């Protein structure tokens, strides 16, 4: 990745990593002696991490790289061996061919039975040999899985987790076709209302405690625990206290089985139908990376996507559930000229000639900080050509210490960097209002905002000669507009946002625009070309690269550099 635009000081050359030589399934590999744990602190490398580095995945339920290690599911049991030391000399004992003699792990009083160690919590030592592919390891996994399935209800047909369930996946890999368990299964409560957004099915739970650890250690709300004992273990909240914080839905992602399910996504769509699109959450300035799950132009859910520079593996509930507006039936779907349905070509030609005719200084432009960088860049070029005053609308809210930012615009920094607004947003709005009142400003272009809520009321809008509005949903401004241009939600187009920390991130298109709606960057290019200021980029890649050349903060960045996790730009 190009780091030309990265402001972070180039990290000092890391100290040489101390390596340990071990063998994984007979293959020699050097692994670092320590690796960062869930908090980023260096910890002794575990067998599971070593196997991962050797390209060999060890199945696990309770282990999660972003959570403290619990080691209770036993699924990651791996047979191993350690070099034999001569008790007298403390030197490794050698075989006849000169290789070190290895003692395979066995049960203390049953030397013929191999003994496994939980790979997630056992650190490696020099000369160790791991056997994740050995018959003994396989047998251990099968036994653990069988034990976990003893009380599992096997109601996959009605379980929302089916299709992304670790229990299903490992059953296919390590399970048995039939059950040997002839007794009655223990039946536990089903469809328990755990909180406003979470449903718990206790029968499906395998007691991995990922949800408990997340809530306690990441979200900081020690809300969940295990009650009862033995086969009657169940996950529960404190009596009378619902499981309700802004991060509860992450436990649904974490739950390796279908015990915790989202009320919002409950019975909505089977996960194997969902097309996954890499995108960015638009609910606040943090710009959490998300995966949009959509089927046939309907967005069904957001899920967090791992990006350690932004959101780790989490996202807040409010952002996650803020997707329904994309599919709202009252979305703007038609190009309207004075309230009458028109075509893009006709409307853009007319707007172009009107803007060309407008004298310099009589035009103002309000662009939302919810628009993409590319759109804001094009708008700025347009404004420069017309000599227009530009501004954006600030949107503040309460932040928290984990992910939610106070700035609720997803692209405030994009608006600042492209020159749409000053560092403090909204300074020009009163001036624009005054300009309209005095008659100096007779043309207003609004993108993605309802200006009637921000000091430019319907009475002022009525005074305008030309009001061009592009938006997604109808509001008082679109009602007053002479030209309404239906735009696209972020899920319907491609583009980039700059988050509050200056992370430039791209998002991709998940669904088709509604009705006649078109990506704003597309029709803005046509409009700009009509006014003689650019255009001509058929793809967002070309447009982005052009913008990166013109905007100083983006210098040296190319679309291809952004990758899935973005780059830092100076803000």
């Amino acid at each position, binding site marked *: 990745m190009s780091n030309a635009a990265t402001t972070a000081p180039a990290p000092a050359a890391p100290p040489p990593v101390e390596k340990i030589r071990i063998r994984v399934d007979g293959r020699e590999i050097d692994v670092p002696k320590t690796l960062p744990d869930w908090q980023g602190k260096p910890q002794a490398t575990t067998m599971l991490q070593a196997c991962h580095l050797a390209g060999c995945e060890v199945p696990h339920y309770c282990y999660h790289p972003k959570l403290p290690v619990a080691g209770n599911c036993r699924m990651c049991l791996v047979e191993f061996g350690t070099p034999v030391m001569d008790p007298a000399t403390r030197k490794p004992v050698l075989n006849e061919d000169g290789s070190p003699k290895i003692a395979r792990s066995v049960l203390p009083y049953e030397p013929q039975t191999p003994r496994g160690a939980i790979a997630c919590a056992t650190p490696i030592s020099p000369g160790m040999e791991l056997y994740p592919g050995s018959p003994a390891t396989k047998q251990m996994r099968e036994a653990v899985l069988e034990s976990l399935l003893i009380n599992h*209800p096997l109601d*996959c*047909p*009605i379980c929302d987790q*089916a299709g992304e369930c670790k229990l299903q996946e490992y059953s296919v890999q390590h399970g048995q076709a039939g059950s040997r368990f002839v007794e*009655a*299964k*223990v*039946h*536990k*409560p*089903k*469809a328990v209302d755990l909180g406003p957004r979470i449903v718990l099915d*206790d029968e499906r739970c395998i007691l991995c405690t990922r949800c408990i650890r997340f809530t306690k250690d990441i979200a900081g709300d020690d809300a969940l625990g295990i009650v009862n004992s033995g086969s*009657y273990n169940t996950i529960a909240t404190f009596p009378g206290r619902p499981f309700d914080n802004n991060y509860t839905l992450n436990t649904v992602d974490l739950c390796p089985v279908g015990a915790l399910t989202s*009320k*919002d*996504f*409950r*019975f*909505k*769509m*089977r996960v*194997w*139908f969902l097309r996954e699109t890499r995108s960015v959450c638009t609910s606040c300035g943090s710009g959490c990376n998300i995966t949009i799950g959509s089927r046939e132009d309907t967005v069904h859910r957001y899920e967090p996507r791992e990006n350690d520079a932004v959101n780790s593996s989490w996202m807040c509930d409010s952002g996650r559930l803020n997707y329904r507006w994309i599919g709202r039936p009252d979305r703007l779907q038609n190009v309207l000229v004075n309230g009458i349905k028109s075509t893009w070509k006709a409307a853009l030609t007319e707007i172009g000639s009107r803007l060309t005719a407008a004298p310099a200084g009589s035009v103002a432009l309000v662009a939302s900080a919810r628009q993409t960088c590319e759109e804001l860049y094009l708008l700025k070029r347009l404004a420069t050509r017309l000599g227009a005053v530009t501004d954006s609308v600030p949107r503040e809210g309460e932040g928290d210490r984990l992910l939610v930012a106070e700035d609720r615009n997803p692209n405030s920094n994009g608006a600042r960097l492209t020159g749409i607004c000053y560092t403090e947003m909204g300074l020009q709005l009163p001036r624009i209002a005054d300009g309209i009142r005095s008659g100096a400003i007779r043309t207003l272009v609004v993108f993605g905002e309802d200006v009637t809520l921000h000091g430019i009321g319907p009475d002022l809008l009525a005074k305008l000669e030309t009001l061009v509005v592009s938006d997604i949903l109808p509001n008082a401004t679109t009602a007053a507009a002479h030209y309404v241009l239906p735009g696209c939600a972020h899920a319907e187009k491609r583009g980039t946002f700059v988050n509050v920390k200056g992370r430039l991130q791209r998002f991709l298109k998940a669904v088709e625009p509604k009705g006649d709606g078109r990506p704003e960057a597309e029709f803005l290019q046509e409009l700009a070309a009509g006014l003689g200021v650019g255009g001509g980029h058929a793809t967002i890649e070309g447009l982005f690269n052009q913008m990166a050349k013109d905007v100083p903060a983006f210098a040296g960045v190319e679309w291809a550099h952004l990758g899935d996790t973005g780059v830092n730009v100076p803000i």
Partner: protein
Amino acid sequence: MTKVVDRKPLSFYERTYVPALWEGLKVTARHFKRSVQGHNTAKELGEGYYPEVPWRVSEGYRGAPYLVRDQDGHTKCVSCQLCEFVCPPKAIRITPPGPDGPPADRPNAEKMPREFEINMLRCIFCGLCQEVCPEEAIFLEDHYSLTGLTREEMVFDKERLLKLGGVHAGTQKWKNKLEEAAAQESFPVATH
């Protein structure tokens, strides 16, 4: 265990096609003669012809797929959408209940489809839906004569499919589970 069958090289006479033609003419002429003399396969088998005598559907015939109810008259389908997924011509279209959909009419099953449509014009009667169904809720039955005057008419909805499908008295998995849970008395069980 490869068995090699030696192909006898054809003689020149055989390669002129003439003997094959001659044999072919003989066979077809024999059948023609037989038919003209009044032999009639259908009559000899003791059956008549199709519209008057309906065709006898043999065991295992794959006719139109329909939804079935259990012996208590409940919908067996739980909307797992595996049939929709497996359907090669994409003839099946299920609308899942969603978070606020109607509850299943079968106790303990939690879920049933809000809408279940099979486009019989697209269906190729392959039987994969029946094979994949974990609830034994869809069966290819013996209807082979499906006609309609419009395309819309040939999209069968849930009510129609259930009506045509009838009852399949199989294992009542969810009911058994509920009874088992109620018998344990370890946790309170909500009985509908």
